């Protein structure tokens, strides 16, 4: 089973929920941190890294000896990543989406592919927990291909927990697509509710069952709960504001280490998810 943990709004507690859930379960789990722009789960899990891989994407390289300046490459490119200027062809590799169109269309076979670094993937363990994350190269714009590379580590024989990035656009979709359940972590504030609605819109487009964790649940803004009820979205966990949790988080400590009574709550959270996702499976 794949559980993707998302939020819409940033800073609501995705990583807190993902990491504490991952370490609370007593069977085999893997945690994939797909927030490749700002991966943080490793700061809490502190895995022993065993493997580092550089992930690249193909980009064009032009052999000017062969090029006839016909301009077809610039014509097919939707991303303005290759243009003919005067007597030369300039590939703007940072803009390239790696579709291979320019190479395919070149009548002179003057275009070959080299690579651009997207970032790195690191893989390791903390006790029995397998940990994988991607780190987008600073300056790189495209995170979805790196997210997809992280997700290639998904094993079908264990529970996979994905820590997704904030927002609702392509990186979030890349982190939720194909999941069996999306756990949305929100906070009871107007910003939290507004962005939660967007996130639920995305989850519904993908047709994945979902549930909520309300973090800092006692902030006194009850519209999130009312919204969840109206939309028939189960609230699976509420985490009241507790300065001890905030301070533990600030140091990189896990909630279940500082407040061990939370371990059982995370186990229950998993059981609820399993039940909802299981019901969905048996229906479809």
């Amino acid at each position: 089973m794949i559980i993707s943990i998302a939020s819409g709004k940033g800073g609501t507690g995705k990583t807190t929920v993902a990491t504490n859930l991952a370490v609370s379960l007593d069977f085999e789990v893997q945690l994939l941190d797909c927030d490749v722009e700002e991966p943080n789960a490793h700061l809490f899990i502190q895995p022993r890294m065993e493997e580092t891989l550089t992930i690249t994407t193909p980009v064009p390289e032009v052999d000017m000896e062969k090029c006839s300046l016909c301009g077809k490459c610039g014509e097919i490119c939707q991303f303005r990543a290759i243009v003919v200027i005067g007597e030369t062809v300039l590939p703007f590799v940072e803009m390239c989406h790696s579709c291979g169109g320019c190479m395919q269309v070149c009548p002179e076979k003057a275009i070959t592919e080299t690579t651009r670094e997207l970032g790195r993937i690191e893989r390791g363990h903390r006790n029995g927990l397998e940990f994988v994350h991607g780190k987008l190269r600073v300056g790189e714009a495209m995170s979805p291909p790196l997210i997809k590379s992280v997700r290639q580590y998904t094993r079908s024989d264990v529970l996979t927990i994905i820590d997704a990035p904030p927002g609702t656009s392509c990186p979030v979709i890349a982190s939720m697509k194909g999941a069996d359940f999306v756990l949305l972590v929100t906070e009871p504030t107007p910003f939290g509710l507004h962005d939660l609605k967007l996130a639920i819109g995305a989850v519904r487009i993908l047709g994945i069952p979902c549930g909520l964790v309300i973090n800092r649940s006692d902030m006194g803004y009850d519209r999130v709960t009312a919204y969840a009820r109206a939309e028939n979205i189960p609230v699976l966990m509420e985490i009241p504001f507790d300065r001890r949790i905030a301070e533990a988080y600030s140091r990189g400590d896990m909630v279940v280490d500082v407040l061990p009574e939370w371990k059982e709550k995370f186990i229950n959270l998993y059981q609820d998810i399993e039940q909802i996702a299981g019901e969905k499976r048996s229906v479809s």
Partner: protein
Amino acid sequence: MKEIVVISGKGGTGKTSIISAFASLAKNKVLCDADVDAADLHLIMAPTVKERHDFDSGHTAKIDPDKCTLCGQCRDLCRWDAISEDFVVDEMDCEGCGVCYYFCPEKAIAFPINTCGEWYISDTRFGPMAHARLGIAEENSGKLVSLIRREGMKLAEEKNLDLLLTDGPPGVGCPVIASLGGASAVLIVAEPTVSGKHDMERVSELAAFFKVPAMLCVNKFDINPRMGEDIEAFAKEKNIKVLGRVPFDPAFTHAMVQGKTIVEFDEQGEGSLAVKAIWEDLSKSFEN
């Protein structure tokens, strides 16, 4: 004309609350919400929309089953596995590269432009505002960010205003890169946590990469003063101007619930005073 972009790396550090407070304090400015993915500034600014425009960007392939001869060339060429075995394009996987459309021997593939959001020019109680809404699960957020900043800039020129206050997106990827280029300076709002420090370091590296001067304030400083000091020390080392500290103050949330800026809600509170001091410092730094 100056543009200050508020970014953070990590989400939820308080970008929007702080830029809202600046909106209360700054004169002669245009507001711009460049966090088009999960735009929240309008919840405080309560804009009256004056102009509404579609945001058209990018294309998606669509196969006409009547013309398709199932030759399979499109599937061979598509690098996103976006075309199913029965030749239907998965709109979400389609990158919009047009390779299938270009090479289809039957001309069976259409390649229409997408409408992936809306953008607005509005009035607020603090002045004009440019903002946008990216459609859920849509792409091209970077292009929408660039567009909305351009429109904000135009608006400022038209109205003879000399400052653009831009609320940026979290992260370091495409929309953030689009929010930085050409800005006078970025203000990084960090939080004193291990994640906040890690992410602040990455986003400050990004600002340096694009040669945009950066400044820093640490929000919720008292949650972990030692971590806050570490972040400030890192900033000083990297020549990032440290503007000040904002305490953890529940008034920020209470203000948000009422749709107010902290300055409107609790003018003499500690959060408000801290942000005011930061704003004074910040505005001095771009006077010269």
